[in-house]
Structures are given as structure tokens and as C-alpha cells.
């Protein structure tokens, strides 16, 4: 019964459309170097199987992002650097190709605690070297960085 209710609730989550904007939170300062996101911000395992986690800007509860950042900051207090978000559009990432086929699957993946969850996965089964190529294709799309605090203030105003 509970699972049924959950499924119904997930059914109400609209599919991710091309014109939506996506958000990615960075937990570790080492994933931003000289003001740019570096490849290790995207793990090969995420691209291959788990999915590179995102939030859909149009439906996300920003409290969830703030809490996520805060939880990680408490866990690793030495990383007190200001958290940053990448903000980028879905469509250009969906258009990226690898050997003439779509490189990425960019899809909604609602979770119990966050219906706005989405992910990016490699659309093809690839070895580590090719996955590295893919993440270097993705990186330029993630360079629209904004400080989390500034983003939240902007959303609230």
C-alpha cells in the first residue's frame, strides 16, 4: 500500500524537459580549482552506473540543498569553504554526442525525500578512458558557478 502511494506520488513528477535548468552542488573545495570545476567533480562510477546527481531548479525545495550542504559541512568541518552550485540548462547536455550517438542520458529520478532529483548517466557502455572523455565534454557546461548563499538569497528575493 505504501509502495503504491509512493509510486503514485512519483507519477505526479513531470518528466525532465529540455528547457529546464539543473543544479549541482559541490561538497568539496578541491573540485573547484582556479574558479573552474575539475573532472574529479564527476566520478566515473557516477557516469557509468550510479548517475551524477542533480536537482531540477523548477521544482526543487531549496531547503533540501541547504540542508545537504550543511550536513556535509558538519561532517567534515575542515572543509568550511563556501559551497557552490553549477547551474546549467538540460538541452545542451542532451545534445552532446559520443561517436555520433547521444553521449548522456539526462533524466528525472525522483526520490522519497527529493522529488526534484535528476541524474546524468553515460548513454553507452564505455571503458574508463572514454568515460573520461565524456566528463571532459560535460565539464564546460558546469562552469556557471554560483555561491549557494547568493543563489538562495536571489531565489528568495
Amino acid at each position, binding site marked *: 500500500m505504501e509502495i503504491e502511494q509512493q509510486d503514485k506520488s512519483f507519477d505526479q513528477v513531470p518528466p525532465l524537459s529540455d528547457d529546464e535548468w539543473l543544479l549541482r552542488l559541490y*561538497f*568539496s573545495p*578541491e*573540485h573547484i*580549482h582556479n574558479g573552474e570545476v*575539475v*573532472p*574529479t*567533480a*564527476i*566520478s*566515473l*562510477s*557516477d557516469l557509468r552506473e*550510479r548517475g551524477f*546527481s542533480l536537482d531540477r531548479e523548477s521544482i526543487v525545495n531549496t531547503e533540501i540543498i541547504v540542508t545537504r550542504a550543511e*550536513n*556535509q559541512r558538519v*561532517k*567534515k568541518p575542515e572543509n568550511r569553504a563556501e559551497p557552490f552550485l553549477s547551474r546549467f540548462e538540460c538541452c545542451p547536455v542532451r545534445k552532446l554526442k559520443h561517436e555520433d550517438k547521444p553521449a548522456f542520458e539526462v533524466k528525472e529520478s525522483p526520490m522519497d525525500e527529493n522529488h526534484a532529483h535528476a541524474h546524468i548517466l553515460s548513454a553507452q557502455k564505455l*571503458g*574508463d*578512458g*572514454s568515460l*573520461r*572523455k565524456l*566528463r*571532459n565534454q560535460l565539464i564546460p557546461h558546469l562552469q556557471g558557478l554560483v555561491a549557494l548563499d547568493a543563489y538562495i538569497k536571489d531565489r528568495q528575493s
Partner: protein
Amino acid sequence: MSSAKYSETLIPNTTAADPVVSTQSVTQIGTTVACFFAVLSTTVSAPSPITMFRSVTGDRLDILLASTFTDKADREDLDAIARIRILGTYEDGWNEPTSVAPTRQTVEYAERFARNLFGLGEIVPPYISASGDGEINFYWKSAGFILDLGFRDGSSYSYYARLPSGQEIIEDKVALSDPLSKEIIDSIRKSA
């Protein structure tokens, strides 16, 4: 400290003029040796943790730093190794809650790679960082050039290179003993 004084502090006085001291010393040494072998025969020591100053395969970094190579500008290899050892101290959950720390093996191979790399001569230092799946990564980016090279568990590494000519090189599994291609080495040399 002179060598004579150094010897005096370590070696007991066993001259014939002082036979009692000599006998005690022999007894103490015998006891110490017996205890030593008893410990060896009954315990298996756990691997010690990797720290900034210690790895299983490498020399101690503090000893290397104190060696004759004291010019910091010439020791970018030591900076790289120090950075890798810091990554070796990460714990699971260091990034996202599901992230894993680099394994001991990954740290050791990355360290060996760094030693080989800087052995090639004047190399542009890479940006060294970890990924949430435990990878240790060496990253170079300059005009028209990208090299994304990393280690996860295992004795091999993988990389993606885009050369200034536009040529791409992709390798899924390269043995540590295999050299990087000449084109890549030329691109990461300081004179490039």
C-alpha cells in the same frame, strides 16, 4: 655529535676493569633478544596508516625533504607526493555521503606514477585531486591541451588526452610500467 661520542651512548662499556657491568649488559641483551623473537613469533602487525610522512613503498617524506635537494623550486615531485599522501588520509564519506576514500593500493600506485613522471625532467605539475569513487587524478589543462589521467584500484591507470593538434588519445588500461606517448610527454614538459 662526534662519532666517538655517538658510539659511547649506544655501546655498553665492557672493559675487563668492570666485569660486573659487562655481565649485566650481556644478560640484558640476551633478554631483549629473546623478547624480540617472542614478539616476532606471536604477533602479526597491522598495516600502519598512510600519513603525509609515511607510505609503505616510498621513502619517508621528511627524510627526502631533509636530503641534499633543498631547493623548493626543484622539488615539485615532493609536493605532488605530499598531496597524494593527503588524499590517502581521506575517509569514506569525505565528499558525498556515499563517496569512498582512495585505497592504500591506489595511493601507492599514484605515488609511483608521480615519481616516474617527475623523473622525466621538467614537467608542468598536474592538479592532483580525488573523486568520489576513490580515484586519484592527475589533471593538466592548458591552451588546446587536456590530460585527465587517474588511478582507481588496480595496478593500471586510464586517461583521456586531447592534444593541441586536436588529436585525442583514449586508454582504458595502461600498466604503470608502460610509458606515456611521446606526444603527451612533449605536451606536459615545461618547455612545451
